[in-house]
């Protein structure tokens, strides 16, 4: 066993189902499609899979299309024989399911874990938009400190972060807008997968409909239906993967400070700071070693917060870093969200970002390929939950 559990595991396969708006297909249907393709991509057969892990799992509210089928349904649909399974939302970000799978592999509990994340949010919202699934009559749990004051959507919880960043550091909407504008350019190079591929100008961004100041419609990601599945295997399996395995160099899972939407001491960094610090404490690699990054962009401001928390630029310096967009372009210092991220590619809730990191490290990203990409960073979450993975190309 290695001294770091993540070195005992690799990501051996990845695939996705059809992705799109209002597919009208069941979550299990999408999941079984993606799972089968991921197993094949890993060079495995169904009988090899002995673990399942998902975020958030069957106890989550499926009404909003936020949760996929629970592990037991997938186990039964594929008739898998498992030695371990888990579905849970209480994790360090959505990719906590990947971390849990790597831990299960490292401890010897299983050898090949099917990890999946399925959403049917687009179908669930139908033509009614997000409002169609919001607005319960009574606020519960931590929501009692936001919902009674009209903190209805996550955009309301994160817009104050953007406002504070602009106030403290002079960040502008023009700088923030470089994220959606650049990601859209990247999305155009992945026309099969991305939801939005038409060119987006900074002017069009600035003119877009405001949702919750200073965040406009184009600062918010796109609800879609779809499933991403990946296989986490023992490192010994790496040579047998037909399409190449990806090594897990380090995980960032720390929960530090007051993890809430409003009580974290420095709202402009939030949970991303703890996860980032933890990740860099587990590796000798440094931010300058990262060739490509896929940072969670449920909202543009989250990707900006991650840029700073991970040390790609100083705290408060993301505005100047983003200015003009050159640094985050495919040929820039830090090619960012090379498949369009969630802003243009659709909200696969972080898992589309993991898939893109794997594609980049396999040198299989086609027109979007970052030259000689050897090290990729993936982050998921933001606000009060956050997780990060540093991945490397298997050599």
């Amino acid at each position, binding site marked *: 066993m290695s001294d770091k559990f993540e070195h005992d595991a690799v990501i051996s396969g990845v695939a996705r189902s059809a992705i799109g708006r209002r597919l009208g297909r069941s979550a299990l249907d999408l999941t079984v499609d993606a799972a089968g393709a991921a197993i094949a991509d890993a060079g495995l057969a169904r009988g090899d899979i002995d673990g399942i892990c998902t975020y958030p799992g069957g106890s989550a509210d499926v009404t909003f299309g936020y949760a996929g089928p629970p592990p037991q349904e997938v186990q039964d649909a594929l008739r898998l024989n498992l030695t371990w399974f888990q579905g849970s939302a209480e994790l360090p970000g959505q990719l906590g399911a990947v971390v849990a799978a790597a831990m299960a592999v490292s401890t010897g509990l299983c050898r090949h874990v099917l990890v999946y994340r399925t959403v049917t949010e687009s179908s669930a919202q139908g033509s009614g938009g*997000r*409002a169609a699934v*919001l*607005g*319960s*009559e*009574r*606020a*519960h*749990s*931590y929501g*009692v*400190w*936001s*919902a*009674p*004051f*009209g*903190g*209805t*959507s996550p*955009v*309301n919880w994160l*817009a*104050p*972060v*953007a*406002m*504070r960043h602009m*106030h403290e550091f002079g960040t502008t909407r023009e700088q923030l807008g470089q994220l959606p504008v650049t990601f859209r350019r990247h999305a155009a190079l992945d026309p099969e997968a991305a939801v939005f591929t038409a060119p987006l100008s900074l002017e069009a961004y600035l003119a877009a*409909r*405001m*949702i*919750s*100041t*200073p*965040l406009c419609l184009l600062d918010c990601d796109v609800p879609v239906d779809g499933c991403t599945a990946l296989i986490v295997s023992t490192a010994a399996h790496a040579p047998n993967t037909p399409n190449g395995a990806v090594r897990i160099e380090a995980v960032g899972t720390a929960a530090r400070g007051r993890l*809430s*939407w*409003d*009580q974290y*001491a420095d*709202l402009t960094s939030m949970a991303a700071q703890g996860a980032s610090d933890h990740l860099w404490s587990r590796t000798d690699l440094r931010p300058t070693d990262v060739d490509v990054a896929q940072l969670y962009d449920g909202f543009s401001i989250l990707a900006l917060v991650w840029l700073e928390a991970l040390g790609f630029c100083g705290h408060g310096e993301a505005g100047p870093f983003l200015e003009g967009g050159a640094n985050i372009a495919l040929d820039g210092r830090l090619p960012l969200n090379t498949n369009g991220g969630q802003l243009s590619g659709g909200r696969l809730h972080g898992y589309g970002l993991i898939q893109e990191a794997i594609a980049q490290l396999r040198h299989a990203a086609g027109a979007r390929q970052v030259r000689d990409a050897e090290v990729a960073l993936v982050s998921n979450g933001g606000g009060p939950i956050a997780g990060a993975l540093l991945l490397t190309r298997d050599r």
Partner: protein
Amino acid sequence: MQDPLLHRPAPSDDPLGRFFWQSGADGVLRFLRCGDCGYWLHPPSSRCPQCLSANVAPQPVSGRATVHTFTINVQPWTPGQEPYVYAIVEFPEQDGLRLTTNVVGCPIDEVRIGQQVRVAFVDRNDAYYPVFVPEAT
């Protein structure tokens, strides 16, 4: 106090937080405070997170606060809903003692980070929702 929100969900009837939602009945805002070390608690908990004392009880604060950050929600989540200010305010009683709330009683585009505000209460759903109005300058 005129309420800018059409849809204001009722708080859950959690025993720890009940005092908070009833505190405005006499026009006074209260938070739990540790009787041993003086630490203010929000959200409520049965033990002081600083010294773990169980000697915590509601205590009044001045009701004056500073806008730490905010957003103007424009999206009509509820049809007919006017844009409203969703804000995080910070209290002078303790560094980092914050409350998520609304700023009301002024044009929404006059709200600023650093603005001095004072508590007022909206009485709905058998609860007193603490909201904040700009201090007269």
